[in-house]
């Protein structure tokens, strides 16, 4: 081996290595440049980047906006009626409303002088447009709407088939007021045009959505020039992105990161109890959960307090079977919730004939062991569900119930659910709109996803929904809460907290209890 060659080869190698190092450092340099640029632009124009978990796949009223799309919608679109951070009803695009006949007819008086982002005037026609036949809300949610009529350019009349607290329903950001100019002459969707504080600028699929300030906003003028929503599906990645300064604010902070972020300098964590409550839904149409005793045994076996304090690190509030979060309307503060009672859980099972006769620590009845499946959404909505499910599994095992956990995407769960091919589902508190206790419909026998049928329950729900009398309504909803606690069509686990975290240079943010709403009013970036 020539020594000459060695030298030459060394040089060549050095060259290659140098090349590698340079290209690597170029990347790192690039990063530094990027940060520097970001810092520069922060000074010149206040911008906010927000990490969200899903892209916005739908911008039009014909579909329900999935996932975190609603946070983006709430910047572009507005509703007739709004909720304040503590869930009190306040005027939105409508400045006032009245019901002359106890809930069957609702007349909304609209604010004046508002225009959509593209200059189209906001008037009664736009409201009618937003609640036409093709709108998702009129098809799926507000089926009792008989007509939406223009009284004059500033007045709209909703006529319903039965009395309903319509303003509550209209607070939901998923059915806001859209400009008729959202669609072309053929009725095909063109672009999102609303009245909100920010207007749509651009979207890069699965990556980001850029909004810019609506200069003509009717309300408080936004401090921010630009808002960028960055799509970061994994919760932990979102947290990292916040910590590394890739984004200024993140939504849906996972519970396990909260305490760390709270103590971390330069990061502010905002928390507020929401109307959502995680629950364990049973398939009451199928053995074993068709037996009330088994459901009750599950309810006794699970320690929601321990789960909340340890698994969720004290984020949220243990529900202990109580269906309603304390911030909900008609939530009964005197309700005596369940607490863990393993002995009772076992007794309930053995009284119902479930006994462990073969010593495998799993109870049987008629030779069939009590083995159940628990479906858990793998989706981006609730990263807390995986450890929760495992904790539940362990607690149920102590009572003699064997649980198999299956992680699936939401769609797949729906599929199994429809086929009735499941025993339990761990759910987030969905179908909650604002503080109004519409959620009880979930266990109504007419609901396709109910898997529970009980005439008494159905009657209570129907009556509560129909009555306009507040005291009567409260009484009925209290009764429903007692009923759910006792009969256990579902076992309510944790009242969810909404958690938003932001870098501390993001100022002026007020967190709202209403979940899919991000209020950026008054938010500004503090310059260093």
């Amino acid at each position: 081996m020539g020594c000459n060659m060695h030298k030459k080869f060394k040089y060549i190698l050095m060259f290659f290595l140098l090349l590698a190092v340079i290209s690597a450092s170029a990347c790192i340099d690039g990063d530094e440049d990027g940060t520097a640029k970001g810092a520069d632009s922060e000074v010149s124009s206040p911008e906010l980047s927000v990490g969200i978990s899903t892209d916005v796949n739908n911008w039009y009223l014909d579909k329900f906006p999935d996932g975190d799309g609603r946070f983006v919608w709430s910047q572009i679109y507005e509703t007739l009626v709004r909720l304040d951070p503590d869930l009190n009803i306040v005027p939105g695009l409508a400045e006032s409303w009245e019901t002359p006949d106890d809930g069957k007819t609702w007349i909304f008086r609209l604010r004046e002088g508002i225009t959509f982002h593209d200059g189209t005037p906001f008037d009664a026609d736009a409201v009618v447009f937003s609640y036409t036949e093709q709108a998702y809300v009129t098809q799926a949610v507000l089926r009792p709407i008989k007509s939406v009529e223009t009284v004059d350019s500033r007045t709209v009349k909703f006529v319903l088939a039965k009395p309903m607290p319509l303003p509550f329903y209209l607070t939901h950001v998923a059915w806001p007021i859209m400009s008729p100019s959202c669609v072309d002459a053929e009725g095909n969707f063109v672009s999102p045009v609303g009245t909100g504080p920010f207007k749509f600028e651009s979207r890069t699929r699965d990556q980001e959505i850029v909004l810019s300030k609506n200069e003509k906003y009717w309300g408080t003028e936004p401090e921010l020039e630009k808002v960028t929503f960055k799509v970061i599906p994994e919760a932990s990645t979102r947290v990292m992105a916040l910590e590394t300064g890739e984004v200024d604010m993140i939504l849906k902070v996972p519970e396990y990161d909260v305490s760390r972020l709270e103590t971390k300098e330069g990061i502010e964590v905002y928390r507020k109890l929401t109307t959502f409550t995680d629950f364990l839904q049973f398939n009451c149409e199928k053995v074993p959960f068709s037996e009330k005793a088994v459901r009750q045994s599950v309810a006794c076996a699970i320690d929601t307090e321990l789960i909340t304090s340890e698994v969720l690190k004290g984020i949220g509030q243990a529900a202990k079977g109580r269906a309603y979060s304390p911030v909900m309307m008609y939530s009964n503060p005197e309700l005596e919730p369940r607490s863990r009672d393993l002995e009772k859980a076992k007794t309930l099972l053995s009284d119902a004939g479930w006994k462990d006769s073969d010593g495998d620590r799993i109870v049987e009845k008629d030779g069939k062991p009590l083995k159940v499946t628990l479906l858990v959404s793998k989706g981006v909505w609730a990263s807390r569900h995986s450890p929760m499910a495992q904790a539940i599994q362990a607690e149920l095992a102590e009572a003699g119930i064997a649980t198999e956990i299956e992680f699936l995407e939401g769609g797949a769960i729906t599929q199994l659910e429809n086929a009735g091919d499941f025993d339990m589902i761990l759910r987030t508190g969905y179908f909650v709109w604002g503080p109004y206790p519409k959620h009880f419909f979930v266990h109504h026998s007419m609901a396709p996803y109910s898997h529970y049928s009980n005439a008494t329950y159905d009657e209570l729900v129907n009556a509560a929904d129909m009555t306009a009398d507040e005291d009567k309504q409260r009484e009925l909803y209290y009764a429903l809460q007692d009923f759910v606690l006792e009969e256990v069509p579902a076992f309510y686990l944790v009242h969810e907290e909404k958690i938003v975290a932001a870098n501390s240079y993001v100022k002026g943010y007020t967190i709202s209890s209403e979940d899919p709403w991000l209020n950026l009013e008054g938010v500004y970036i503090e310059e260093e």
Partner: protein
Amino acid sequence: MWNYIAKRLLLIFVVIFGVTLVTFSAMYLAPGDPAEVIALARYGQDLSAEQIEAVRAAEGLDSPVHIQYLTWFEHVLRLDFGKSVISSDDILEEILFRLPATAELALASLFLSLIIAIPAGVLSALKQNSLLDNACVFTSLLGVSIPNFWLGLFLIWLFALKLPLLPSYGYGNLENLVLPTLTLGTSMAAVTTRLTRSSMLEVLKQEYIVAARARGLDERSILFRHALKNALLPVLTFAGMQLGYLLGGAVIVETIFSWPGLGKLLVDSIFARDFALVQGCVLFIAILFSLSSLAVDILYAVLDPRIRYDRHD
């Protein structure tokens, strides 16, 4: 050579046909009624039996399996991969939308791995049994043994969390590319280093290297003209296989780094039980892989005169 290429082409058609059969039949492993799945996505949760049956008829799911396969195959030939069951997007469009991200990641990783592996492997072989060589052998074995999902997490921990230098997720900028490429590229570099080293050792043992030296050629041209050219041929053939490694590794790396590529699409669609999309993805990946192996084989034939001028085969 043309014979060789023709043979390979013929083979690739047989293989792709087989691949379609496998992909199609794999879907029958899945539990559940496909008609119901589609109906669910189309009409929502409130399903009636009539709706399901209507879907079954409309989608041809009531015909015998072989007819279903032929219909599906015919569509595939016309580059119609069908529509996603969940989002009802066109599957091929969706795949092609995701393809650039995966291609970017794969090419960058391939580049990185070669830049590390070829010099390392060559140097290691030249200094066989030296400290450097031993270090190289050990490191590459270590590199082969580190699962890339662990390596990815480690890189995130170090570069994104401990010393926040690089982003841990996302796509679009150069700095987004760094960590995924490091994850995928270095583990591949380990494999390639091993291959380059052993190939180079093999070549250096050859008599024609001694012969070249005996003719008084300088070491530089012996190394670059005589040794490297021969040693890199197997490395090139291996690049075909590596593409498979890249595509497989991409599934994991894309998941870790939220990289919007084909691999993530595949995993997401598996969890969403969007079997049509799973089918489309797998088929596309397999065809892509087969075609690139073919390309590598042809390239090999062009580069290696033993095949290029072989008139018999």
